[in-house]
């Protein structure tokens, strides 16, 4: 008889909710397709898709609520005290809430886009939920095994989602490319984990910390390989080549989802890994991060200038933003980490918004991709043009927007830990980025419309997402420490970011 372990199932609530949601959707699709007599109406594919999207949104909202409650409660709870692989703490519940919110918004954004492409299948939402459950596992993992499983559970559904529009060659290419490079990255990550296990004799972060010795060459190689594995996921230069092709080929709604959530999950996991398993960064590793960060900022911004395709331009811009985020890793201070978390939230809203506009302009599955096709949009679609201009200003980091506040916090952290050169590179490249970001508002407001066949009306889901993102970008930029909401009073996002990473520094 095996003694039953002392398990704490309630800790798993966010993941369980999301996983149950995905299975509900799978079952629901089968049941709904036979429900025409019960419902007393014709059951069409897009009707089923819309109902299932609603289900996904409902479960993500539940997850958001559950992790919000856990965050408010504070404290650290582990799933299994004998072998804590998964840990619910302020950091994991906060990041889980951010992930749930962005997945919710992505689902709302996808409905009409997918219906127009006639691929509004339930599997889409099921895959989104499965990958979200992987991310939530990964950000709460305190064991290398759980990190790896979470990473795979996050990635495999996204490989499929990238190729979800199977009739388009480029979508297939995107899926295959992402799959090959992703599996390669996973193998490198796994090799690094094996070396770390060999050095420390355990896979838990605690054992790694006890056994990690920075003078040990094998430990450094292991840590390096793990960082390279993550570098592929967050598209850090020089591991970024897949990003533009994958972002361009995947359906825009999928690109919106993966450009935001994968980055949040991978960066959060990296923060936890570095803070919990390796303690304060060693000088040698800090130098490597410094070089990678500078390279990523420079290459991302320079390459973005010459793009003529909006999705490719946003892909390079997301690389550049990964570079800014890495400044937080270089500092390794509580200030740097909390700035990263705040930046990730800001990035979530502005990037999701920018891709949301691209999605809302897609006409019958023809993506509005050329930058030139934004010409005169202010004349034909004034509302969309206004929010797009706002997101571009925010991505460029103009004061008054969330993007500025995020960059300000990150640069402040760099100054306070003495990385003046990184600050100079960051600011210079932000100035460069203004050029390519502002091209779109200039085209929208100062050129005559071309003969472009944009969609002429906006779907309610898309509209809601764009409004939420635009308001969030403004609110986080103007008063980040007291975001006014009607329902919950003022929200202090800066304080939340501080509290979530505070636990790594004994706070």
């Amino acid at each position, binding site marked *: 008889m*095996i003694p039953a*372990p002392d*398990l704490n199932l309630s800790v*798993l609530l966010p993941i369980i909710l999301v*996983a149950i949601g995905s299975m509900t959707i799978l079952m629901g699709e*089968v049941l*709904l*397709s*036979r429900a*025409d*007599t019960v419902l007393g109406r*014709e*059951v*069409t*594919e*897009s009707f*089923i898709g819309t109902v299932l999207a609603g289900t996904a949104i409902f479960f993500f909202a539940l997850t958001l609520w559950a992790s919000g409650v856990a965050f408010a409660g504070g404290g650290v709870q582990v*799933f*299994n005290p*004998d*072998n804590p*692989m*998964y840990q619910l703490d302020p950091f994991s519940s906060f990041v889980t809430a951010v992930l749930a919110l962005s997945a919710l918004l992505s689902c709302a954004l996808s409905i009409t886009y997918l219906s127009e492409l*006639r*691929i509004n*299948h339930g*599997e889409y939402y*099921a*895959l989104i939920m*499965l*990958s979200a*459950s*992987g991310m939530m*596992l990964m950000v709460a993992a305190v064991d290398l*095994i*759980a990190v790896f*499983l*979470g990473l*795979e*559970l996050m990635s*495999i*559904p996204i*490989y*499929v989602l990238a*190729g*979800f529009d*199977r*009739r388009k060659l480029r979508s297939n290419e995107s*899926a295959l490319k992402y799959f090959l490079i992703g599996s390669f990255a996973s193998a490198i990550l796994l090799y690094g984990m094996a*070396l770390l296990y*060999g*050095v420390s*004799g355990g896979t838990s972060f605690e054992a790694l910390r006890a*056994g990690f010795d920075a003078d*040990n*060459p*094998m*430990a*450094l*190689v292991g840590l390096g390989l793990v960082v390279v594995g993550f570098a592929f996921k967050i598209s850090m230069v020089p591991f970024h080549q897949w990003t533009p092709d994958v972002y361009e080929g995947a359906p825009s709604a999928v690109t919106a989802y993966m450009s935001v959530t994968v980055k949040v999950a991978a960066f959060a996991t990296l923060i936890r890994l570095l803070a919990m398993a390796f303690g304060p960064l060693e000088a040698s590793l800090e130098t490597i991060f410094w070089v990678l960060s500078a390279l990523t900022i420079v290459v991302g911004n320079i390459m973005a200038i010459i793009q003529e395709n909006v999705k490719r331009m946003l892909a390079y811009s997301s690389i550049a933003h990964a570079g800014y985020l890495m400044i937080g890793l270089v500092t390794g201070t509580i200030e740097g980490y909390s700035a990263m978390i705040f930046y990730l939230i800001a990035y979530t809203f502005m990037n999701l918004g920018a891709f949301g506009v691209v999605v809302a302009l897609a006409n019958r599955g023809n993506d509005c991709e050329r930058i030139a096709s934004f010409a005169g949009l202010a004349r034909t679609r004034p509302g969309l043009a206004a929010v797009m201009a706002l997101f571009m200003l925010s991505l460029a980091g103009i004061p008054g927007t969330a993007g500025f506040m995020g960059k300000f916090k990150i640069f402040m952290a760099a100054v306070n830990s003495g990385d003046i050169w990184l600050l100079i590179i960051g600011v210079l490249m932000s100035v460069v980025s203004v050029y390519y970001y502002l091209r779109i508002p200039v085209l929208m407001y100062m050129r005559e419309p071309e003969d472009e066949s944009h969609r002429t009306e906006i779907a309610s889901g898309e509209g809601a997402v764009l409004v939420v993102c635009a308001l969030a970008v403004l609110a986080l930029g103007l008063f980040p420490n007291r975001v006014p909401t009607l329902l919950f009073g003022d929200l202090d996002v800066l304080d939340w970011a501080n509290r979530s990473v505070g636990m790594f520094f004994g706070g």
Partner: protein
Amino acid sequence: MTESLIFFALAAFILLGAVRVVASRDLVHAVLWLAVVLVLTAVMFLMLGAPFLAGVQLLLYTGGVITLMLFGVMLTRRHHEIGVEVDSSRRLPGALGALALFGAMACAIFRTDLPAWPSSAPVSALEIGRAFLTDHLIAFEVLSILLLAAMIGAIVLGRQSDFGDEPETVYRKGGRP
């Protein structure tokens, strides 16, 4: 002494097989070489005192994965005419890069004084099963979700119905379109 001799012989054959997998022009040959690599890896597991893992490796990979891959290759029409293009102009730089990486990592590993972990007795299937349901319960459960995700993904990518040109499917009585 004999043990390390066997180890190096095994390792050499595994490496040789792995190179053949990526260098073969014929897909069937590549798959068969992969089978060699996987069987030898199972022997490696045996040497490390993990008979259960060795069995699983044989059953799952050689018995399952390789057979499926062979079926896949055979069922793909005219596979022998396709002839995989393996030569490329980047062969030399690629080989040099791989050698440099190998050298750096081998150097790092040899310069490390590895702690002497006590060599463990062969792990029984009973212990592995117990670990799955106690210490590694969460990994065990997540793996099942992962397999579900992979299965859904394979079905989505293999579906034919997206290619039709007819107007939107309307489900009537009994769920038949």
